[in-house]
């Protein structure tokens, strides 16, 4: 939600994206026996990019600025 605010995405839209992405990730994870944190992060970035390329970019580059 914080990232959405930084990018000028409205709070309502941010919440909708978060709900939809969380649903997709839950369904994706159910089909797998094991998942790593890196798998989850990559899948989240992929799902978020459907709604906002900038948000997906921020998520992918978290902790990689310096």
């Amino acid at each position, binding site marked *: 939600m*914080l*990232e959405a*605010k*930084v*990018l*000028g995405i409205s709070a309502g839209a941010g919440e909708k994206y978060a709900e939809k992405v969380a649903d997709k990730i839950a369904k994706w994870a159910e089909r797998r026996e094991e998942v790593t944190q890196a798998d989850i992060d990559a899948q989240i970035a992929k799902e978020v990019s459907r709604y906002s390329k*900038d948000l997906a*970019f*921020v998520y992918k*580059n978290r*902790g*990689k*600025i*310096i």
Partner: protein
Amino acid sequence: MKPDLYTVILAGLVHATLQLGVGTLLLLYHASLGKHVRRKTRELVTNYILGNGFLTALAVAGAGFIIYIVCQRPMNPAMLTIVVGVLVGLAVSVWAFYYRMGKSTELWLPKSIANFINRRAKLSDSNTEAFSLGMLACFAEFPFTLILILVTANSILALPQALQILAIAIYALLSVLPLAIMRIVVRKGQTVVDIQRWRIKNKNFIRVISGIGFMVLAGFLLVFKILGA
């Protein structure tokens, strides 16, 4: 006098190519835009830039004082030869490992220090904290900038007294120029994402320019201060 002034300007420009200050400012923008109104973010950024410039100017003045105490005048050619060697070594270091591998702008910093700076950027809510963050970013870059500061201080000692304070100000202003440009660019409407995309896209170019800058400065000192002495 002219070679000394040009040395100060060149060292300032090389300092400006280094990326830790810019990256930390981006982190501050990112953290602040999510929490504060724009006016507060602008105040924090201004204080960050002031903190960065303040410590740079202080370091140059301090280095000048130490050189004067130790040598009683600007450094002799033998000492400058060592400085030239360090500059060449840093040029190679910048080319080789200033940035970590991968498609990001992660720097050579140990992860613990990068995480600490990240945390401080997120927690900077007051002007004082932003000022301190600016000083922290300047301090963390010292492994690469200390030699530039030393070269600048040495050149400033050779200038007439009336120009010395101005030369310190010129160096400090040049070193924070990218930060000021970023402030203007964000003010004009670019987002932190646009800036970070630009940094990733031009990462190799900046790295090459930075290394060339160190080499050119080394060559400048060799020609005008060592061979020309």
